[in-house]
């Protein structure tokens, strides 16, 4: 059980190295090895998930077990929240990789693509598992540096420009994070997340605490593209190859941005009112502004990218609300509802945004354009793409019976229960705006009178691509089941418990 934990990082690394060496010698080696790796990882993640339950398992790297409650080496921690993230990362990764099998065939240097894909997965798994602040930073860099290269994989003008912008802002974010880590080490003399919390519980100076938290919010906010730190996202996510867009929007901004923010603010810092307010406000602003910016886009993938900003805003806002409610102390049920809604929406967003980007990729694959004005009348020519994208659009705009409806509903109910009436109204309004711009996408791409393009010649995409889309669309329906209390009890509750009871997290590490 715990011996599997380091393999989540080691296996994709080994696969990447093997692909670089042998990919040139044996044709088709990488097309076989990379999906196999992801499949193994997914099976391992599901196995860990079923066996874990409410526990949290620490793993001491190198066998360095601390003495007297002081950690010594690097700890990896597998708890309800991280195992949930592992499942999402490897699932979406597997689907995107399967989709790539035919999508990437038009590019050169395919084996580099698969190697970088394995590295990005290794980096994200490392981030999610890490229980050590600096180690988290190192693996974050692994995943973002490979994503810089993957964004510019097509080496055209727009890709290179987007990648440059992404690199500069990503580099800035890394510097802010590194500075914050340095300051935290200066104050607490330790890097272990649980141990840092122990030191902070013993007291801290308010100005230092606030400064570090602001640095971390700015740093990880840049990685997660919360407004006002979003400048790079529309470019990077729209110009990357579509499976990579699905990876970036679906899981990367969550694994290196939202996950880390949540982990640090719930399990490392002691809650503070100011920061919870800042998070809630930033989330609400991203939610509204992102959707308003999305509605005016004519480039399909830019529209999807802005909608990612908006949907991530929901998650951040619900998390901030959860902290505020926990601090208030008199309404824990609403707090649990808010946090659960945030996690649920995060999973849902990974699935339907991944699906939408894959749809956009199919359209681009057949039409060679991303401009909505140049599409039209494709519902007959590409039935699978059309149906799946309809399901994803309805899901993201929050129509029943799709999963997006339930997660948004939970967030709104939590807001009303917690007496955040303004936020609840905003969430409803943004949901309607979302519906508006996805109807625009549906109408212009599939149901409009055929534009200049001769639609007869356009065929449905090949099997790997259509299969991935169908799978994710089915998942969109299946995830609605999470709204049933007994199902969410087994799947979401361990993650929520891991967050709202930081003592569990601390004692399993420090009590060794």
């Amino acid at each position: 059980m715990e011996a599997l934990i380091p393999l989540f990082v080691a296996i994709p690394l080994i696969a990447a190295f093997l692909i670089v060496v042998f990919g040139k010698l044996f044709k088709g080696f990488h097309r076989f090895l990379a999906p196999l790796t992801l499949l193994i990882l997914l099976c391992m993640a599901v196995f860990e998930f079923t066996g874990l339950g409410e526990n949290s398992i620490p793993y001491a790297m190198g066998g360095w077990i601390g003495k007297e409650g002081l950690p010594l080496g690097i700890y990896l921690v597998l708890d309800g929240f991280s195992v949930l993230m592992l499942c999402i990362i490897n699932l979406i990764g597997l689907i995107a990789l399967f989709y790539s099998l035919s999508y990437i065939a038009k590019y050169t240097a395919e084996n580099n693509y698969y190697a970088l894909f394995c590295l990005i997965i290794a980096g994200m798994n490392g981030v999610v598992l890490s229980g050590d602040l600096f180690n988290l930073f190192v693996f974050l860099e692994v995943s973002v540096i490979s994503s810089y290269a993957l964004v510019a994989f097509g080496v055209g003008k727009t890709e290179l420009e987007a990648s440059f912008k992404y690199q500069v802002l990503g580099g800035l974010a890394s510097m802010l994070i590194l500075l914050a880590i340095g300051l935290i080490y200066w104050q607490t003399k330790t890097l272990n997340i649980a141990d840092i919390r122990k030191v902070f519980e013993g007291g801290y100076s308010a100005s230092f605490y606030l400064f570090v938290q602001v640095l971390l919010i700015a740093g990880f906010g840049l990685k997660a593209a919360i407004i006002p730190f979003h400048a790079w996202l529309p470019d990077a996510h729209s110009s990357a190859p579509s499976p990579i867009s699905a990876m970036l929007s679906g899981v990367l901004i969550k694994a290196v941005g939202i996950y880390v923010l949540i982990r640090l603010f719930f399990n490392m810092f002691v809650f503070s009112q100011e920061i919870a307010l800042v998070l809630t406000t930033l989330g609400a602003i991203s939610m509204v502004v992102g959707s308003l910016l999305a509605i005016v886009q004519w480039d399909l993938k830019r529209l999807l990218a802005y909608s990612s900003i908006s949907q991530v805003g929901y998650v951040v806002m619900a998390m901030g609300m959860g902290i505020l409610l926990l601090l208030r102390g008199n309404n824990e049920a609403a707090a649990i509802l808010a946090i659960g809604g945030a996690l649920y929406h995060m999973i849902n967003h990974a699935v339907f945004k991944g699906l939408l980007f894959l749809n956009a990729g199919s359209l681009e694959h057949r039409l060679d354009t991303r401009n909505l004005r140049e599409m039209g009348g494709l519902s007959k020519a590409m039935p699978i793409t059309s149906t799946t994208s309809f399901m994803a659009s309805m899901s993201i705009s929050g129509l029943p019976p799709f999963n997006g409806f339930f997660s948004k509903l939970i967030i709104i109910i939590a807001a009303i229960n917690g007496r955040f009436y303004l936020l609840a109204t905003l969430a409803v309004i943004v949901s309607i705006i979302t519906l508006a711009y996805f109807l625009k996408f549906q109408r212009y791409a599939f149901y409009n009178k055929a534009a200049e393009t001769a639609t007869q010649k356009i065929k449905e995409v090949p099997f790997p691509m259509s299969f991935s889309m169908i799978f994710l669309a089915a998942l969109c329906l299946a995830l609605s089941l999470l709204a049933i209390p007994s199902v969410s009890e087994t799947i979401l509750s361990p993650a929520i418990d891991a967050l709202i009871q930081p003592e569990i997290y601390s004692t399993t590490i420090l009590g060794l």
Partner: protein
Amino acid sequence: MIVYILCFILFLVGLYGVITRRNLIKIAISLSIMEFSIFLILVLIGYIENGLAPIVDASGSAQIYVDPLPQAMVLTAIVIGLATTAMLMAIAIRLYRKYKTFDIREIKNLRG
């Protein structure tokens, strides 16, 4: 404390460069400068008055050594910095071949 303040000034100089410069190479330089200032802050944190460099001498007598952990962190960060700079340079030279300039105002999507 004065050294930490000077380090932070160096950090701000780098930040100023990233925000105001309009040249790909200069933006990369500014990022490197920010990195350098953080390296120095980290090593300063680990310094101990009258401490020795963290290499145990053969006699093995008990002595004060400076903190090796920030040094290990900085070593890691230096290599990360090299990786970032290399990637930035690769993109910069590629963009230069396309546009014959390093200036981001001449490059379509990078304005502002």
